[in-house]
């Protein structure tokens, strides 16, 4: 990680966004290095989209400092936007145009010639696996196809930095995996990715490094692995009890694990050896309906940091 603003693609210190009395982003600090895949992980309303819009130079910062590609968004908004690709949370495709026209006309906004737009559109249609649908209208496309077209459109200006706000929210698992594969290819080509997500699996799949956001603040920063090592144990044992039993468990689990989290429908026991915890629980005469031993995830990190689940 680079702390030096001259080598960071994005450099933020005390970055703040307020709407009237409401503070959407509260004095956050972060840097994004070239060719990195950087994530903002947090629940809805944590301030992720407001942060992305400030980076995207479409929403003025209220306080602090922010440089994007070494430029100040307050002064150089158009120059910054010329070098960014943006995939917004909500599709902004033109449904009155065909798939191909969406790409070509968007390229024109970046001052590219029609020939150049056409050439790039061909490549991007191939990349987004939409060549066969290029002359179709946008509306009948599936959600996954629309997302891929939005990503292709964001790449028409060959951006140095690609901003993705909740790129796979609302997609089915197959469409998500296809999209992750495309994003992974971009990363391998050296495109810097900045994405927001409230899916911990997405953050683990795509991000080299991420910050966990909650209530307008950054509460932790590191690689997915570092965060798990720092804030959770190696394994988690999930015990699910009948509702009336779970309510009368007081004290019976004490000392079984390093840390115990009680959720509405199950109990999570954090320890490096999950099997041993399961055996010990059994020896105490506890009879859970189901026992699941698994590795810790970013979901556990989030729970530890905020006391809440990512998806509520």
């Amino acid at each position, binding site marked *: 990680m680079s702390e030096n603003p001259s080598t960071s693609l994005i450099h933020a210190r005390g970055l703040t966004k307020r709407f009237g009395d409401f503070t959407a982003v509260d004095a956050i600090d972060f840097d994004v290095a070239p060719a990195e895949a950087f994530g903002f992980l947090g629940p809805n309303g944590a301030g992720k*989209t407001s942060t992305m*819009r400030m980076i*995207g130079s*479409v*929403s*003025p910062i209220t306080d602090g400092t922010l440089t994007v590609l070494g430029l100040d968004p307050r002064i150089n*908004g*158009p*120059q910054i*936007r*010329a070098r*960014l690709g*943006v995939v*917004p949370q*909500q*599709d*902004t*495709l*033109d*449904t*009155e*145009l065909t798939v191909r*026209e969406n790409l070509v*006309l*968007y390229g*024109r*906004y*970046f*001052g590219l010639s029609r020939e150049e737009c056409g050439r790039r559109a061909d490549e991007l249609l191939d990349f987004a696996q939409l060549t066969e649908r290029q002359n179709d209208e946008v509306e009948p496309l599936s959600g996954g196809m629309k997302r891929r077209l939005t990503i292709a*459109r*964001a790449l028409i*200006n060959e951006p140095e930095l690609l901003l993705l706000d909740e790129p796979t929210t609302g997609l089915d698992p197959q469409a998500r995996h296809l999209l992750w594969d495309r994003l992974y290819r971009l990363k391998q080509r050296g495109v810097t990715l900045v994405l927001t997500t409230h899916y911990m699996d997405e953050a683990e799949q795509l991000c080299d490094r991420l910050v966990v956001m909650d209530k307008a603040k950054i509460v932790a920063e590191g690689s997915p692995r570092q965060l798990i090592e720092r804030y959770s144990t190696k394994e988690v044992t999930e015990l699910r009890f009948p509702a009336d039993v779970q309510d009368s468990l007081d004290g019976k689990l004490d000392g079984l694990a390093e840390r115990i989290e009680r959720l509405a429908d199950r109990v999570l026991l954090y320890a490096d050896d999950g099997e041993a915890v399961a055996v010990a629980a059994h020896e105490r005469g506890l009879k859970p309906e189901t026992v699941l031993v698994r590795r810790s995830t970013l979901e556990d990190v989030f729970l530890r940091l905020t006391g809440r689940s990512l998806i509520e």
Partner: protein
Amino acid sequence: MAALSHVLEHRAVQYRRTFRSSVFSSFLSPVLFLTAMGLGLGGYVDRSGGAALGGLTYLQFLAPGLLAATVMQAAAFEATFPIIGGLNWQRTFHAMYATPLSPRDIALGNLVWMAIRLAMIATVFTVVIIAFGAAHSPLVVLGIPVAVLTGMAFGAPIAAYSATQRTPNKFNVIFRFGITPLFLFSGTFFPIESLPGFLQPVAWLSPLWHGVDLTRGLVLGTLGQNPVAMLAHVIVLTTIVAVSTWAAVRTIERRLVRG
């Protein structure tokens, strides 16, 4: 200006899809109106003598007013749904704002496109007026820019308002209590001198009346009879367009920045 031309290119490609049906209905509307009102109703009006219309046939009186009024209606439509759609439904204006375009480019590009659309409608209408023999002066072609100016005196302020709305719920109010009464009572179908005395000053407040009177002067070649009034019409309409264009740039920018 390059950025603005790209917005026009985008809108033109969108429009190409509906070009045929759009041109057809641009023809159909004046043909139907001038046949029913100008020839049909006009036949009765003319039998009672043309004194009230200053010696004109009713068709001659009606055609220029209807040109301005039709362009006004088209402007009201172009300034509501496409604007709210670009900002709230398809959100294409937000997509444009993620490029080097400024909110000003986006707002002005769409307003200029609106003016181009109105010019197309006015041109088709003028061709129909000539075909009906209702034009009496070569100045008839100047009716096109005047009709566009009149239309923009509605289009620009309505666009400024549309950009503040997230739903189209209040658009009905604009059409029902704004556009339709103005269409009927701004001297389009009968001279405003026929209105009750206290209502006449109200008609002067209508931008459409300024547009109708000006268009009528041009189409009928009677402009020279009252040059001061004509100049006043141009000043009123131009001022409305200038101020409300500035307002539309502001409201569209505010909406884009807010997200």
